[in-house]
């Protein structure tokens, strides 16, 4: 009886201590608004925190970031905006956790960030025709309302990317990938991958492609007529859709692989 009372008292003391810091939020910790012409890229790079992309009603890209933290200094995270490409018409926005962080249109390397609990959530509104490239490490990525090309990646979190056009490429490591796209003209290869989670790619209308579907622990499903021949590898299936053409790879280790027809 005495021990139980002591245990309860110690829990309540720790619970009330300043060590259990309250989560704090700074909305609009960063905002950026600018014109990105149709056919050019808006890229957003993040380390900890989700990225949500929605459609913009206007003709400007609107980016806002919200910081959340408990113990770390929120000022340790800053934001950079770079323009690149012909006439500087493409834009990359980076959340920077330390001075050694490399961030440009080619990639993002935060260089060993430790003991920093600042979390940055991006919200990106994109006008029609603007290409979207978003990446984070810890957090989900959601793209909805894009009308052109999309690249969406994370490491720990789900990826859900939808474009009324395309193409869409999406990847994560721990989480599922869902990519939906409309009709688009080019015949570039497409990749959708994870390690732990299901991979689903949804296409609109008929599809001419050569697909490679890989899973170790999971099933294959296709809404499209797929033509297979040769030895059927239980973990790696190659098939031709329609007349064949672009290569589409869907791969996971633990999860299903699904090729869906939209509508």
């Amino acid at each position, binding site marked *: 009886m005495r021990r139980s009372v002591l245990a309860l008292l110690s829990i309540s003391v720790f619970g009330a201590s300043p060590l259990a810091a309250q989560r704090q939020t700074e909305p609009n910790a960063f905002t950026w608004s600018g014109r990105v012409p149709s056919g050019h890229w808006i890229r957003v790079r993040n380390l900890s925190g989700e990225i949500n992309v929605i459609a913009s009603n206007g003709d400007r890209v609107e980016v806002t970031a919200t910081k959340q933290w408990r113990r770390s200094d929120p000022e340790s995270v800053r934001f950079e905006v770079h323009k690149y490409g012909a006439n500087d018409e493409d834009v990359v926005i980076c959340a920077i956790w330390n001075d050694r962080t490399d961030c440009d249109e080619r990639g993002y*390397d935060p260089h060993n960030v430790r003991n920093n609990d600042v979390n940055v959530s991006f919200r990106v509104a994109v006008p029609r025709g603007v290409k979207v490239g978003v990446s984070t490490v810890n957090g989900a990525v959601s793209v909805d309302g894009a009308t052109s090309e999309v690249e969406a990646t994370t490491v720990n979190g789900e990826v859900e990317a939808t474009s009324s056009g395309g193409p869409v490429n999406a990847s994560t490591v721990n989480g599922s990938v869902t990519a939906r796209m409309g009709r688009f003209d080019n015949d570039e290869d497409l990749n959708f991958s994870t390690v732990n989670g299901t991979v689903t790619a949804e296409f609109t209308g008929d599809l001419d492609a050569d697909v490679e579907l890989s899973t170790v622990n999971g099933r294959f499903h*296709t809404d499209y007529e797929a033509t297979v*021949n040769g030895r059927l590898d239980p973990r790696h299936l190659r098939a031709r859709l329609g007349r064949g053409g672009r290569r589409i790879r869907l791969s996971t280790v633990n999860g299903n692989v699904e090729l869906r027809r939209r509508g």
Partner: protein
Amino acid sequence: MRRLVSLLALCAITACGRGAHDSPDAFRWEAELEPGTTIHLRTGSGRIDVIPGSSRLARVSGATHWVGRNDPIRFAWKRDGDEVYLCALRSTRADCDEGSNSFRDDHSWLDIFSLFKHRSTDAAASFHVELPAAVKVDAATMNGPISLAGVTGGIDARTVNGPINISHVAGPIEAKATNGAIVAVVDSLGEDDPVVLEGVNGSMTAVLPADLEANVQLTTVNGGIRSDFAVTTEGELSRHRLRGQIGSSSREIVLKTVNGNVSLLSPSGEQTPEQPPRPPAPRQPPAPRPRS
């Protein structure tokens, strides 16, 4: 002395002195068979071999093999219109017809008092057949292989223990082996002729004409699936089952086993893609590269 006693005991246990006997010409039968005739071959234990003949005359020979006493195996035949039955029977009461059961012994309740009657024997009866063209073969054995070559009128073959080897044949094919592999090399098929190979323990292999069109079902539980033909499918793609379409025909091709591989092969042994593979597409620019 002790050695002699041991030898005698060993002899009693192993039934030495029960020598193996062969009667290669135990049965002969021949008759002219018109195209469309079906020849039914039935034996309980023993092999069945069919090879193509050079005339309309079918020649059937039966051979027996036994160890120890001679079992009462008798050969019988019956003709009923286009159906010819040839049976190796171990029962004096059995008939050789559509409902014949070659595997049934002459058992009665009095057998429990017999020192000999209820013993199993090693007796086997085999068929060797020279078959005219366009005659269908219906062959069944329980213990023994079946080999069918040059049969052009269709095949129905069943065995429990033993492989089935079908080569250079034509027409509809149905073959079932419980413990044994099945290999069927088919030269030609009629418009709707099905090919059904089913087993439990053993691989199923069909080599079919290069211009094959069919609805295919390839199934195995423990084994791999291979198709030289381009099979179009949709829905769930299982590692154990492939259902799909080759061309537009509704002809059924079923290859099914539990333990073993399933192979649908073309005569050339080459895969038949609908189109040659296209060259690789140029690489994309690098994607974002999180490195922490």
